[in-house]
């Protein structure tokens, strides 16, 4: 009896095994076209959100190119892509670049020439539709060099103000000069005890510098002149800083640590009359009653001028391909996809992501949703980039420190800018 049950057991096992193998082979995939995976590094937050929207379409249209998206905080992203490009083998095939990083990457020869790639693989880049100023920062040398990256996020600095309050006190709007802004801030804060005249970013580092630059430029000041010398202590710059400090007096207490969150909080709660510096990503929900207490009351305008015409600061993000990427063709396809008119429009409609193509800014459906887009396009077209130098990170850090010292009154405007100029000169020597 024992022998029989043993035989039955063996037979059963063999049958099960054969069955399992048959099922396995019938399920094994038939060999398909090769699938390529490209790795993309992008900043977290609204940038990543917009890419995720685009990816839903990408995955349907390009099933053979898988995209692996890694997102990082601002400084982490810089660190990661620098390390990736510096080494022999690329970690990323597509990287998103903040425009001040371009001179450094361009100088190091780390980015592939997009025109050459397009020629090699038979793609066409439709340059006419892009906003020129955004294209220029993607070239190295600036404006004249080869295109090393395509602009994907048309960020530009804007000014936002409470139209209802301007009208209530008979102040002409939009303000054309910083002096007008100052006068308006004074008048409104004197008459409206609940509202601060201005709200500005005063946190040391990038925020305070970004906030100050448009004022500096409007007064004709510069950080670095055409010959590459530091000139941030010029009389124009000192005058600009004095006006900027005056503007700061009408800001809420604590602006010395304000960054985007605080500015947004004051703007959306209607507690500030003028936000001297806002970015497209911050104002997208001003007309959304669930988050905004000032629906329809806030107007966005091109930042004012003063001695020169307005000079909004450009802050576009670009997409580039590291020189050491092994999937340049697929990377270029992805970049062309993300910057295409159709996808830019979708990203804008779904997430409010600022486009870089004129046709999207002028698109009727898009403008219906974001009424300030014509202004944004105007600002972008007249915008100015930060100095095109490889040492910008350091220069910004130095200027940020001394502006902060001037803001807390530890130094006079003259002392602060003289000290900054001295250190920036030192930093430029390398």
């Amino acid at each position: 009896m024992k022998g029989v049950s043993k035989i039955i057991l063996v037979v059963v096992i063999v049958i099960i095994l054969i069955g399992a193998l048959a099922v396995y082979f019938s399920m094994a995939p038939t060999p398909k076209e090769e699938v390529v995976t490209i790795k993309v590094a992008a900043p977290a937050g609204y940038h990543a959100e917009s890419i995720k929207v685009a990816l839903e379409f990408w995955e349907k249209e390009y099933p053979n190119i898988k995209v692996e998206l890694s997102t990082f905080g601002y400084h982490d992203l810089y660190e990661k892509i620098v390390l990736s490009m510096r080494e022999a083998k690329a970690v990323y095939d597509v990287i998103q670049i903040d425009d001040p990083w371009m001179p450094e990457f361009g100088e190091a020869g780390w980015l592939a020439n997009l025109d050459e790639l397009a020629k090699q693989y038979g793609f066409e880049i439709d340059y006419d539709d892009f906003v020129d100023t955004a294209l220029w920062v993607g070239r190295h040398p600036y404006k004249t060099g080869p295109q090393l990256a395509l602009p994907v996020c048309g960020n530009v600095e804007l000014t936002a103000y409470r139209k209802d309050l301007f009208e209530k006190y008979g102040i002409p709007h939009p303000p054309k000069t910083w002096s007008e802004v100052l006068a308006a801030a004074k008048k409104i804060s004197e008459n409206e005890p609940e509202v601060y005249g201005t709200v500005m970013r005063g946190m040391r580092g990038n925020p305070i510098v970004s906030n100050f630059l448009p004022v500096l430029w409007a007064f004709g000041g510069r950080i670095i002149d055409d010959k590459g010398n530091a000139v941030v202590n010029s009389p124009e710059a000192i005058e600009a800083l004095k006006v900027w400090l005056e503007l700061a007096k009408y800001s809420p207490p604590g602006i010395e640590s304000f960054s985007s969150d605080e500015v947004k909080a004051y703007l959306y709660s209607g507690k500030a009359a003028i936000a001297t510096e806002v970015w497209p990503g911050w104002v997208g929900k001003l007309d959304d009653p669930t988050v905004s207490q000032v629906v329809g009351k806030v107007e966005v305008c091109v930042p004012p001028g003063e001695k020169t015409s307005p000079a909004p600061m450009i802050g576009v993000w670009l997409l580039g391909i590291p020189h050491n990427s092994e999937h340049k063709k697929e990377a270029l396809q992805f970049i062309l996809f993300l910057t295409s008119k159709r996808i830019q429009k979708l990203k804008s409609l779904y997430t409010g992501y600022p486009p870089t193509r004129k046709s999207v800014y002028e698109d009727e459906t898009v403008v219906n949703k974001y009424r300030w887009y014509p202004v944004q396009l105007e600002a972008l077209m007249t915008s100015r980039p930060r100095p095109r130098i490889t040492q910008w990170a350091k220069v910004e850090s130095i200027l940020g420190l001394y502006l902060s010292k001037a803001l807390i009154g530890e130094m006079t405007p003259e002392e602060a800018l003289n000290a900054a100029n001295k250190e920036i000169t030192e930093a430029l020597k390398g």
Partner: protein
Amino acid sequence: MRRKEKYLSLFFLLPSLLIYALLIIYPLYETIHLSFYKYRYIEKKIEFVGLRNYEKLLSYELFQKAIINTLVFDVMATSLQLLTGFTLALIFSKSFKFRPIFLPLAILPMVMPAAVVCSIWKLMFDYRFGILNNILASIGLPRLEWLTNPHLAMISMVIVDTWQYTPFVFLVLLAGLQSIPRELYEAAMVDGASKFDIFKSITLPLLMPHIKIVVLLRIIDTFKIFTKPALLTGGGPGDATETLTLFFYKEAFRFFELGTGATVSVIVTVIVGVLSILYLKRVRL
């Protein structure tokens, strides 16, 4: 025979010595080596500059301020954490009604990520909307510029760090308190010792080893303060909260000046090393 034993013990030590050399000695050597060079990582330019990095840094005002700030922060934070942690440990060493509920709550801050802690505190410190100022205002006190008054900003950092790391001190000291034998207290009470005498002659001396070690750990850890100034103030206002690690981070990973970065690390290592050795000599663990 003895010699053989000695060699044998050395042989058994070899693996850990190798790991130590690989993970500690070699990087340390490389860092010191690098500190004599000017090395811009992005441009791949390396140039021997001798002691010039040290000279430049030590005469740089912001760096001097960073050293002072870090030391001030270290002393303030460590002492405050010891005080609050000790008090909490004394409270929790007795059993009381809601102890099982409060104990995990008291430890909660320590397990939270620093970035979360900073976001919470940034909201609480806010001049207008923050809960701290709202409380002050409701009892008729003036609102404070927690993060933006240059004299107050560092104290605010200390408050946040204390809030987060008091539980660590508290846990170590609580464990210490619970390891003191009950009999000692009973004997003292039989002898008619007062509560203060018991604390002074039994609790404190027997807890001393724990206090010493926890203070050393906090001195070293608070020296590395980074997230709080980086996220709450950016080192500002002015240079009020610039710390050594923040300075190091900017040099090494934002400007990619690896030579300068290495120099900062060497200086930090020397300062922490000297402090620890002095401390160890003094307290004799």
